[in-house]
C-alpha cells in the first residue's frame, strides 16, 4: 500500500509525542498530581506579588547557601547555585529562583522528590542590578536567602 510521505511524517511526530506523554504518564501520579504550575507566581510583576502568590513571605534562613556573582558582566547569563544545609533546614520540597527587578521576578521553580538533594544550579537573566532570591519551600513554610548582583550589561539583549 502506498502512503503519502507527508502523512508518514505526521504519524512519526505523533508517535514521538506518544513516547513523551507515556514517559510523563509513567511517573508516580502522586508527585505529578501535586505539581501544577504556580501561574500567578510566574505572572507576578514584583516581589511582594510573587510572595503573595506563593501564599507567604519567606523568613530568612542561614540554611540556604546561595551562590551568585557579585558583579555580572553580562546580565543575560548569570550563573546561580542554591544549596541547602539539611541540618539547618530539613525537608525541602521545592526551590525557587527570583530576580527582583525582572519584568516577572519568578525565574524558575524546582520540585524534588525524596532522595533528590536540595541543590540546583542554573543560569538566569538579570535585567538590572538588584537582589536575587533563593527560596526554599519546606513542610513548615517558606525560607529564603538573597544576594545582590550588580549588572554592567543588561539581560534583555542590551
Amino acid at each position, binding site marked *: 500500500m502506498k502512503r503519502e510521505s507527508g502523512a508518514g511524517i505526521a504519524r512519526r511526530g505523533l508517535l*514521538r509525542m506518544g513516547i513523551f506523554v507515556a514517559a510523563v504518564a509513567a511517573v508516580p501520579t502522586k508527585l505529578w498530581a501535586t505539581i501544577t504550575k504556580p501561574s500567578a507566581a510566574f505572572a507576578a510583576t514584583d516581589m511582594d506579588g510573587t510572595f503573595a502568590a506563593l501564599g507567604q513571605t519567606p523568613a530568612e534562613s542561614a540554611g540556604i547557601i546561595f551562590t551568585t556573582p557579585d558583579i555580572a558582566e553580562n546580565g543575560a547569563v548569570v550563573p546561580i547555585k542554591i544549596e541547602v544545609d539539611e541540618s539547618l533546614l530539613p525537608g525541602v520540597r521545592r526551590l525557587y529562583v527570583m530576580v527582583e527587578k525582572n519584568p516577572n521576578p*519568578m525565574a524558575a521553580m*524546582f520540585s524534588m522528590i525524596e532522595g533528590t538533594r536540595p541543590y540546583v*544550579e*542554573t*543560569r*538566569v537573566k538579570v535585567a538590572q542590578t538588584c537582589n536575587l532570591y533563593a527560596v526554599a519551600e519546606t513542610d513548615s513554610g517558606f525560607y529564603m536567602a538573597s544576594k545582590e548582583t550588580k549588572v554592567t550589561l543588561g539581560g534583555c539583549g542590551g
Partner: protein
Amino acid sequence: MAGKIRIRAQLDGDTCEVKALMRHPMETGLRKNQAGDAIPAHYIEEVTVTHNDQVVMHSYWGAAVSANPFLGVRFAGGQAGDTVKVMWRDNTGATDEGETTIR
C-alpha cells in the same frame, strides 16, 4: 528526537550529579527585532529529570532562564550504568530529551 541536550551524570559517593546543557533561544517575548516588531516569546516551560524512569526533579521555568539553559541537579541512589534522562517542553509545545548512563 533531535537530541540537542548534552547531558552528563557522574557519581560522587552516594550522590549522582547530573549536568545538562540544552539548546534553546529562550525568547522572553519582550525583545524587538530591528524593524521594531516584538519577537514572540519562545522558552522552555517544563523540565524533568528522571533516573531509571523515576522522576527525581521536575521544574517549571519562566523566560528569565538564560538562552541555551544549563541545569545541575543532584540525587541519591544512583548506580553506575543507570539511565538518566532530561526532558523539556517549551511554550510552543515542542519537546526534546537527552539520555545518558551514570558513570
